[in-house]
């Protein structure tokens, strides 16, 4: 099967999923509704009580600081759609239909993860507009900002593949949803997404420092110019090299889960 066939088949599959985003706009509304609530909650309820480094509980500074964390959390939750969507396709027999066609087998998951990138781009646009409304601004060059978005998208894309595997493994959309919530919720909170790490107790802080969610947030924060002035240099190698450390995770996720998820697709969707 040539690479061209894989791409063209993946494109057909992705197109199908994108039509669904268009036909069921509720899906996009609900993926963005809860992060918007988070923005409002943290910006106006908790924000006043959280001091960003160097800015003694300045709510305006906190809102700028907050957005990168919200972006990271949102695209990660966006990546879980991959798992739920695939599990639903298994349940409805669509995967069986695909598997009985002479298409490139890897195109099903590739198409799925690609369309979820489109979904995440739309979500990021909505969230950025929300951010602008609450006072968040990009203070860097176009290219730096683009790099920030790109890293967020790439990180979410690599996590999509983890969920592609889970979606093939646990063929019930409800299970995928619940399971992903249990894993992702602590992962996005034991991080610098909403609070500076200085406030975390010892071991938790170390975990948070090595958590890739922290580093992707840190990278986005730096690339958008949202680090409050006077912030001390972060501790720990990952946070000092957030772009590099995040990219390593992206690569690891892809190298491990692209083949694992595809093997799962080929062998065990059949029950």
């Amino acid at each position, binding site marked *: *099967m040539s690479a061209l*066939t894989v791409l*063209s*088949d993946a494109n*057909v*599959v992705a*197109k*199908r999923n994108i*039509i*669904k985003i268009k*036909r*069921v706009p509720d899906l996009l509304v609900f993926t963005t509704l809860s992060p918007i609530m988070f923005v409002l909650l943290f910006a106006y309820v908790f924000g006043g009580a959280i001091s960003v480094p160097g800015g003694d509980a300045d709510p305006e500074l906190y809102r700028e600081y907050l957005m990168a964390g919200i972006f990271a959390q949102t695209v990660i939750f966006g990546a879980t759609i991959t798992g739920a969507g695939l599990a639903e396709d298994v349940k*409805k*027999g*669509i995967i*069986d*239909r*695909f*598997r*009985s*066609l*002479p*298409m490139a087998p890897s195109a099903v998951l590739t198409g799925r993860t690609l369309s979820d990138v489109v979904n995440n781009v739309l979500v990021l646009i909505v969230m950025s507009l929300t951010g602008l409304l609450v006072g968040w601004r990009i203070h860097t060059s176009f290219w730096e900002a683009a790099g920030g978005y790109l890293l967020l998208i790439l990180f979410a894309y690599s996590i999509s593949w983890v969920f592609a595997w889970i979606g093939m493994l646990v063929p019930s959309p409800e299970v995928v949803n619940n399971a992903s919530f249990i894993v992702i919720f602590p992962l996005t909170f034991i991080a610098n997404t909403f609070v500076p790490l200085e406030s975390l107790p010892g071991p938790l802080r170390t975990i948070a420092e090595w958590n890739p969610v922290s580093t992707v947030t840190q990278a986005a924060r730096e690339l958008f110019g949202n680090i409050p002035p006077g912030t001390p240099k972060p501790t720990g190698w990952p946070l000092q090299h957030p772009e590099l450390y995040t990219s390593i995770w992206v690569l690891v996720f892809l190298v491990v889960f692209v083949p694992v998820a595809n093997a799962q697709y080929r062998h065990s*969707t*059949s029950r």
Partner: protein
Amino acid sequence: MTDAIVARGLVKKYKDVTALDGVDLVVPTGSVLGLLGPNGAGKTTTVRILTTLLRPDAGSAEVAGVDVLARPSAVRRKIGLSGQYAAVDEYLTGYENLEMVGRLYHLGRKRAQARARELLASFRLEDAADRPARTYSGGMRRRLDLAGALVADPPVLFLDEPTTGLDPRGRTDMWDVIQTLAKGGTTVMLTTQYLEEADLLADEIVVIDHGRVIAQGTSDELKRQVGGERLELVVQDATRLARAREVLEPLGVGTPTVDEGRRAFVMPVSGGPEVLSEALRRLEAEQIGLDDVGLRRPTLDDVFLALTGRATQEDENDQLETSGARR
């Protein structure tokens, strides 16, 4: 004439269940095979193996001359599969569904689009072509699903319970479609729980139960296997059934079945009209009144009952209860 589908000794085991226990099948090119059996007999497992969705634990299979285990993707180019529940994407329109399948068969954009229009027309879905499939009725979804299986004009078609859950109208529609395809030379393997369906559509019937082939042949051959005609009568007064059985049993060639609820009595006989008139004389002498009486050729229901000791799915629940009680 070569064989379009050949399966030898297919075995598939799940943890503690043996789904298939050595199934052999041969379907000559251009014929229709009906794979008949109750729920859980192994019909779907057989289809899934032959359509490359599932690997057997043992055995081998060839479809359209291609080894299913060695060259699954070559097999996929030659088959169409329409599953037990319609595998259509409910958010796509009928047209988009078929175009997508065409693209994935690598027909090319133009050809896929033309083929989608063609199929929508021949399956009477033109008016609904641009509506999302979730607005379709059950029958329309099935037709769309079957149309999807036909996009690449496959020489071999697998239909897994194509009419389960359809209303009578939808069922006859589906039968027409299948008969047309068969006339056009497509080899069809269809699974069904409905004996009537196998009787009507299939050139040859394979009966499976508990993962094994328990009988095969044409509908007529199977009926012959179970013996000749049936004497069937309905008495006016259910309390006289026992007496009726006593006087009639010596005339039969097999064990009669008595259904108290329907006040019915059925018994295999071999003498034809003479037996019928003798039976009537005896009942008259006993003054047992009748609502209905007749001789009929055995149906596949009788075949199934005779082969498995169980009735078909209509009575499945009763059967489960009685077999449970026996254990």
